[in-house]
């Protein structure tokens, strides 16, 4: 049984950041110097501690907490419940940690608005905690919306043309996503009459073949996939992450996008898993979208010269791999998702901070313009190389744990072909980052004439922060990414995953049975990480070594790279919001056709 003392902790991950945020809003203008920064860091660290405590205490059973003490009345759940499992608490703790690192990185950055940045970020943090821990469908939507609103405002901080346009694209597409989720909620409520996950699951199990249930899932899934940047809903991400201030991009790529994908997993396992056509949709459509996203994101990543846009496409690619993990059934792939979520968030966060360091010290973000200019800040170069190797599949750390577990899950189902997508996506993104590191910090990879065409706008970020302060969170994040992959990580994740799947759905309304963790699976193809890393290094070396390759080779490779597929990908990302909305419609049509097929097959 859970000690009653921990019961009281359940609403605090949401309440503490909101309390500190509103206090900062009230008195922020009169607080001296850097006190708002310090308070924000303390608040984030407090949330980390609370979440870690909750994770430690939920190994024996989930914590069910009813807001306002509204216990269910018979079959009807009257209030909003939180169900905290170990898996959710671990993810929530990680996200709070990322926020703490961001606050340190952003120390003194936002001079124009001072405490207002921290207010927005703390509300963002609270929303993410709420999204992760809630067990009520509409409450999930409310926190989703709070996350979105704070993100929209933070993206356009720099008030120049590119950030504003990027923010507009972001806002319009994600708002349409919110409307889709609301439509899905209306459909689900019309069937079930209740909003609690457990009650919904029980009710939908009785409507197992109803098209309305499938329709509800499709709409909610589409809305979440827009935020989670799966193809064909991903177009806004490259624009938004490239122009947002670096501390904000850390949170977007490291936490917000993967959290939306995990949210999709949550509503699938907690609500819709009892509907067979939806099961089929997850195994086929969502899996297919994940595979496509991983590959296309990786390929597009290689073609970028704007460092933050490159990282944004790599987020899309890794989001695709997360989606693959979510689509595969069973605790092994979920454990992989948990490890990958945290590992990727840490590494991507560190990379965006390195980009911020470059913007602050070298005064630019175009990879070609920066060639060789990174030498004065060589610690950032080391970090970037390490992060690039981790991203590219190096066999150590949390990201490797994650991809190994997901690969094992795919292998166990005989779907080894999925590994090809994982390998391709990982190798392309790792290769792109390694190429960037080599070019910026070692001065390799000169391309005659290319450097004259600089980025579209002069970019720079506030230079007045000391290098050690900016590098400190980078180093901490990378150490955790590598070090937390030590021996027991796999078992912890497997245990957390098994317990989540066994308990999360029914915990709010019924008794829970035992949950057995699966054994750590032997890696099905132990050479895969080395293959991926080797491929990544090969790609980087190829791009950097143009000067030493024979003339004919570089000419053919240039012709291939300007081929129809690649230019089509480039042209699709044209920045026009109307086109992005049309792609959303294409995605919705895809969902409609697939659900019709799934209903027919069931």
């Amino acid at each position, binding site marked *: 049984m859970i000690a009653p003392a921990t019961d*009281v902790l*359940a*609403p605090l991950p949401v*309440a503490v950041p*909101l*309390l500190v*945020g*509103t206090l900062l*809003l*009230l008195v922020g203008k009169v607080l001296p110097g850097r006190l708002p920064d310090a308070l924000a860091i303390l608040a984030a660290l407090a949330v980390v501690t609370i979440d870690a405590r909750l994770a430690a205490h939920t190994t024996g059973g989930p914590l069910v*907490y009813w*807001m*306002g*003490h*509204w216990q269910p*009345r018979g*079959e*009807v*759940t*009257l209030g*909003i419940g939180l169900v905290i499992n170990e898996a959710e608490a671990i993810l929530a703790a990680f996200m709070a940690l990322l926020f703490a690192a961001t606050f340190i990185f952003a120390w003194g950055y936002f001079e*124009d*608005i001072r405490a*207002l940045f921290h*207010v*927005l970020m703390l*509300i*963002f943090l609270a929303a993410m905690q*709420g999204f992760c821990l809630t067990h009520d469908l*509409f*409450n999930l939507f*409310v926190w989703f*919306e*709070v996350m979105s*609103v*704070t993100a*929209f*405002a*933070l993206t356009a901080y720099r*008030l120049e043309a590119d950030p504003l346009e990027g923010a507009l694209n972001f806002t319009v597409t994600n708002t349409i996503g919110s409307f889709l989720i609301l439509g899905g909620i209306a*459909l689900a409520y*019309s069937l079930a*009459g*209740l*909003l609690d996950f457990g009650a919904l699951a029980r009710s939908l199990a009785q409507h197992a073949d109803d*098209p*309305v249930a*499938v*329709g509800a899932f499709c709409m909610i899934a589409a809305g979440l996939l827009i935020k989670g940047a799966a193809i064909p809903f991903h177009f806004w991400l490259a624009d938004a992450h490239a122009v947002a201030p670096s501390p904000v991009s850390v949170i977007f790529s490291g936490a917000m996008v993967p959290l939306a994908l995990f949210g999709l997993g949550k509503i699938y396992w907690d609500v819709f898993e009892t509907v067979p056509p939806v099961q089929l949709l997850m195994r086929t459509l969502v899996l297919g979208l994940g595979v496509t996203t991983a590959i296309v994101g990786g390929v597009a990543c290689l073609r970028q010269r704007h460092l933050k846009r490159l990282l944004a496409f790599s987020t899309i690619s890794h989001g695709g791999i997360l989606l693959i993990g979510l689509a595969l059934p069973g605790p092994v792939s979920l454990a992989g998702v948990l490890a990958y979520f945290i590992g990727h968030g840490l590494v991507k966060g560190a990379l965006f901070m390195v980009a911020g360091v470059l913007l602050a010290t070298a005064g630019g973000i175009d990879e070609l313009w920066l060639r060789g200019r990174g030498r004065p800040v060589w610690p950032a170069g080391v970090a970037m190389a390490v992060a690039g190797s981790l991203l590219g599949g190096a066999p150590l750390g949390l990201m490797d744990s994650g991809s190994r577990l997901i690969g094992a899950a795919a292998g166990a189902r005989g779907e080894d072909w999925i590994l090809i997508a994982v390998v391709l996506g990982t190798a392309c993104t790792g290769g792109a980052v390694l190429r960037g590191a080599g070019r910026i910090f070692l001065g390799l990879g000169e391309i005659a004439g290319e450097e004259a065409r600089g980025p579209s706008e002069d970019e720079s970020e506030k230079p007045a922060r000391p290098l050690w302060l900016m590098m400190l969170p980078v180093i901490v994040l990378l150490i955790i990414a590598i070090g937390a992959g030590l021996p027991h990580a796999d078992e912890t994740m497997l245990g957390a995953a098994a317990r989540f799947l066994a308990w999360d759905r029914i915990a709010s309304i019924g008794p829970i049975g035992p949950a057995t963790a699966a054994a750590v699976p032997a890696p099905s193809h132990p050479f895969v990480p080395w293959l991926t890393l080797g491929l990544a290094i090969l790609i980087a070396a190829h791009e950097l070594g143009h000067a030493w390759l024979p003339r004919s080779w570089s000419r053919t490779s240039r012709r291939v790279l300007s081929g129809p597929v690649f230019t089509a990908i480039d042209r699709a990302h044209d920045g026009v919001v*109307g086109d992005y909305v*049309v792609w959303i*419609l*294409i995605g*919705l*049509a895809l969902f*409609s*056709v697939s*659900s*019709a097929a799934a*209903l027919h097959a069931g």
Partner: protein
Amino acid sequence: MTRKARLLVAVLCALVSAPAIAVVIMHIPAFGRHPLPYGDAINHTAGAQRHVTNMVSAVNFDYRAFDTLGEELMLVAAVTGTLVLLRGRRGESLSDRAAQAGNRPVCERSEAVTLACRFFLPLITTFGIYVILHAQLTPGGGFQGGAIVASGTLLLYLGESYRLWRRLVRSRLLDMLEAAGALVLVLCGLGPMARGGAFLQNVLQLGQTGALLSGGLILVENAGVALAVTAGFILLLLEFLEETRATCEGEGP
């Protein structure tokens, strides 16, 4: 894509999705005739349990108060976000002139407009406060009443001058009121925990059904929401009205 291409693709998508949408619509439970367990449970018990007569307010401020907390903080975030986006010195001086749109002349206010505004402002404000205060009794509440009062202050700008509007509407005070309103709501959540209750549990005296002071914590939450919404919306209006002023030299974004 060109506009025509976009439209073509959109129509194609609509045609492809139409059968699925039609199937879903045909299977939706009968309009007006399907069971509503959650709604019925609240309609039948909330009056007795919380001594209120407005079920929607009971849901908003008691049963699903956690949603309202999120919603309130979203409003605060949006207002803060707008403040961040429209930061700049434009319009902060009392003597700023109205900006001109193209060749259109800037007209003088007519006395009829001023008279009408002076007549309606107290009426609207009173009505808004009435709506706020009767949250738990009749349709209304903090959100609705707050929006009414905030929109009413716009009559100050319409009927009087920008100068008077800026003199009476103080952004510093409004900032603090908005933050205070949000803080009240958060404390309504944490407060009951200090007395051993759950987050946002209604632990105050419930009063008599139908009285102005009934509903317990619902009243306090309603007041917090009203404060935050009023101040927030007036701040939004303030920021947008600032943008109607003409720019001077060296004014920033």
